[in-house]
């Protein structure tokens, strides 16, 4: 595929890096795994095959190889040679076809999956672009993405009942972790009873939430390893949910960890989306995630 027009940020993403955090390499990887895994499932791809992660749409590509593709994630008009195509349904494309994406109406990220994945260079066992570390690169006009040719035509569609809703209000299920016990009862109450909104200062590293600040926040803690979904509270008292491109260690207190499924939804939440926290025990959180991954790992 050749890139004719780029978006705000488009890059190749897979499940990110594992096994290099001890030397400071961040995880990176697909921000919305829900849409990412379904893209691969609808193509019959292996678990974790790389896809394009396209922020806000607006991209144009020329197909150079006959193959199957699928688009999942944010709601945008997808056109193949000018005709509207469905999302969440794999279809066949031919050399010379032009694929164009309108702007994302609901959600932020569109995943473009291709049968067999994109042929590109692995760095530290992953294809994922990592902006902070300069690993890989974002798509530029003129870039050529190598894909494998496929003959058999895929036509799989996700059932409507599974489609994400992109609501204006999002509930984040939070499990108590890290310094939870060191936050005052009043601050925990504030966190659980307030409505926050997604701040414009949100990116692949983390989503900042604006709203009632927590009052009694420790200035710093001894720097420690940070997991996906950890909710960091810096001294201004407004929570930040740390996502795929988070730093490996950090010295701000953390009040809990958001269920990964809800982190995937948060990644798709537009600036201004209302967000509330509710508590969920780790046992339930773990079984929800096992249930989720079971559908994709065969």
């Amino acid at each position: 595929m050749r890139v004719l027009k780029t978006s705000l940020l488009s890059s190749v993403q897979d499940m990110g890096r594992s096994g290099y955090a001890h030397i400071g390499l961040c995880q990176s990887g697909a921000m919305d795994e829900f849409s990412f895994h379904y893209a691969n499932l609808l193509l019959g791809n292996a678990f974790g095959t790389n896809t394009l992660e396209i922020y806000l749409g607006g991209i144009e590509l020329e197909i150079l190889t006959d193959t199957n593709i699928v688009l999942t994630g944010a709601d945008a008009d997808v056109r193949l040679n000018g005709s509207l195509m469905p999302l969440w349904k794999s279809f066949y494309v031919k050399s010379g076809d032009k694929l164009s994406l309108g702007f994302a109406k609901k959600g932020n990220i569109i995943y473009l999956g291709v049968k067999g994945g994109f042929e590109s260079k692995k760095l530290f066992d992953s294809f994922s672009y990592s902006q902070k570390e300069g690993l890989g690169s974002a798509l530029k006009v003129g870039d050529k993405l190598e894909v494998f040719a496929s003959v058999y035509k895929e036509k799989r569609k996700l059932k409507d009942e599974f489609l994400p809703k992109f609501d204006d209000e999002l509930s984040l299920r939070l499990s108590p972790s890290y310094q939870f016990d060191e936050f005052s009862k009043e601050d925990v109450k504030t966190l659980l009873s307030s409505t926050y909104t997604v701040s414009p200062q949100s990116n692949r590293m983390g989503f900042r939430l604006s709203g009632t600040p927590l009052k009694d926040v420790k200035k710093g803690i001894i720097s420690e390893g940070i997991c996906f979904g950890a909710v960091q509270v810096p001294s201004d008292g407004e929570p930040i949910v740390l996502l795929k491109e988070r730093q490996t260690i950090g010295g701000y207190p953390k009040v809990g960890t958001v269920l990964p499924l809800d982190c995937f939804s948060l990644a798709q939440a537009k600036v201004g989306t209302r967000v509330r926290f509710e508590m969920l025990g780790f046992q339930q959180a773990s079984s929800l995630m096992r249930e989720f991954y079971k559908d994709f790992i065969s």
Partner: protein
Amino acid sequence: MKIAQSSVNTCIIYLSDTISLTAGKKVQELYVKLKKAKFIKDLIPSYTSILVEFDVMDEFESVKSKLEKLLSEDGLESKDGFRELKVPVYYGEEVGLDLEDVAKHAKLSVEEVIKIHTSTSYLVYAIGFLPGFAYMGEVDERIVTPRLSNPRAKIPRLSLGIADAQTAIYPRQSPGGWRILGKTYVELFDLNLKGYSFFEVGDRVSFESISKEEFLENGGEV
């Protein structure tokens, strides 16, 4: 010692409540042990803790009991432990951007600051911030200096700095507020390095003051 779940597929082992050389050595010993465990996918050792990533399909309780078993075993394997590294540094005024300020703050001469900085053996407590950026301590209290109140937008790569009682080298150009004392020519993060990072948590590091000639001959950049 405490093992606490931190997410559906991670837990954190706390070995101490305070930063100390003893705690740092404990982290290093356990880190060496855990690196060999097959049920662990990733590890993030830091000053007093180790974050352990496991398979999301595994139950935390079973991971916890495996970790407890490992923790209770004798530290027999810890002897293959740590490396001692010597890093050449050019403490020249054209690269040691804050040498004079640090000397002033310490009420010492520049030469004395260099002598003190090079006569300590440091422990790598943690790696983070940038790939290969190693937090080392403790800096001799005579030259302890706080970070710049206005961080620099660009610190040249391979600059050596101190911040309070810590010392570190920037593996690549970066914004930062550490007080810069000098520069090395040793690559710290590179695909061609074994393990990719020059430093690893638990390393014992000392710095050696070298001349400008030696620095330049080895590819150092002023």
